[in-house]
């Protein structure tokens, strides 16, 4: 145990022990088989024509969760931006310190990751993959490119950067509101354009999730490289 003064403290031990007993008892009381909403979801997905049920749940049945979740991502980006120490720090170089190994790795890996991201989105409706996974891989590729000095975003809170960060959420809101004009409710895609709209959202979300993850990293990383405190 690390710091003898702090790690083995009584209250945390009681709390986690209590949780263990309380939750353990609840888990053991469960019947060994149950299917939740799996059957309904599978049938629903079959009707909507999306083979990957997880994608159907995320973007169709529970698309509202996903809309709010994109809001969470953008909110977190704004939050991290608001915590910058020095607004000018973002425009400074934050990388360019790649060694030969990281450089070579990036040269092979980054294009591959971007391809993988595209592939994940494309197959997302029928196989594992989709906007979240694709976006995450895209964001990771971006981080790698920046870390090794291949990409130098002019990250200065300029209008264009703000647009890139926002356009995914705005488009999603637009698509969510669009069915209202036809008498449907929020996010109720019309049957004839459902598949197209979902694919459109997937692509937008991939880009915006990728941009959010990258900017979460950039906004915080640049604070490190921003130099000394004023």
């Amino acid at each position, binding site marked *: 145990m690390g*710091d003898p003064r*702090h*790690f*083995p*403290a009584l*209250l*945390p*031990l009681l*709390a*986690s*022990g209590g*949780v*263990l007993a309380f*939750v*353990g008892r609840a*888990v053991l009381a*469960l*019947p*060994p*088989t*149950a*299917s*939740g*909403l*799996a*059957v309904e*979801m*599978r049938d629903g*997905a079959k009707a909507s024509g999306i083979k990957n*049920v*997880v994608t*159907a*749940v*995320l973007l169709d049945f*529970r698309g509202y*969760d*996903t809309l709010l*979740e994109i809001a*969470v*991502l953008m*909110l*977190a980006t704004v*939050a*991290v931006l608001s*915590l910058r*120490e020095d607004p000018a720090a973002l425009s400074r170089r934050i990388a360019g310190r790649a060694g030969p190994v990281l450089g070579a790795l990036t040269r092979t890996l980054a294009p591959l990751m971007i391809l993988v991201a595209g592939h994940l989105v494309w197959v997302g409706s029928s196989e594992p993959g989709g906007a*979240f996974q694709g976006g995450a891989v895209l964001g990771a590729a971006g981080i790698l490119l920046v870390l090794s000095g291949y990409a130098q975003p002019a990250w200065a809170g300029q209008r264009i950067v703000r647009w890139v960060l926002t356009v995914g959420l705005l488009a999603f809101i637009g698509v969510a509101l669009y069915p209202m004009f036809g008498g449907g409710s929020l996010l109720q895609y019309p049957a004839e354009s459902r598949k197209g709209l979902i694919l459109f959202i997937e692509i937008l979300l991939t880009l915006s*999730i990728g941009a959010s*993850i990258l900017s*979460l*990293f950039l*906004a*915080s990383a640049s*604070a*490190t490289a921003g130099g000394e*405190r004023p």
Partner: protein
Amino acid sequence: MSTYLVYTAGGVLLYALGTYGLLARRHLIHKVISANFMGSGVFLILIGLGNRSPEGGPDPVPQAMVLTGIVVTVALTALGLAIVKRYYTATGIDNLDDEPSAGGDR
């Protein structure tokens, strides 16, 4: 006893471990890591218990919930780390036990 129970039990243990770390570890970054372990614990419980389907194949609903949860957790983590860094720059303190010497705030 079956496979789902192994992962669920692991999730419960992981959650308890994370709770302990969040409350007991002093360094703020350790607290952030602990919260992430709590999250992973809950996700394991969610998907573990979603693997009890008699007709085979895991329940897609917990999977969707976990995907959402992972994204939310990274957002929380990013915010937490940003605050920790800013606080450290301002005061040189990396925990919540010590008080900053000069608190000038409105």
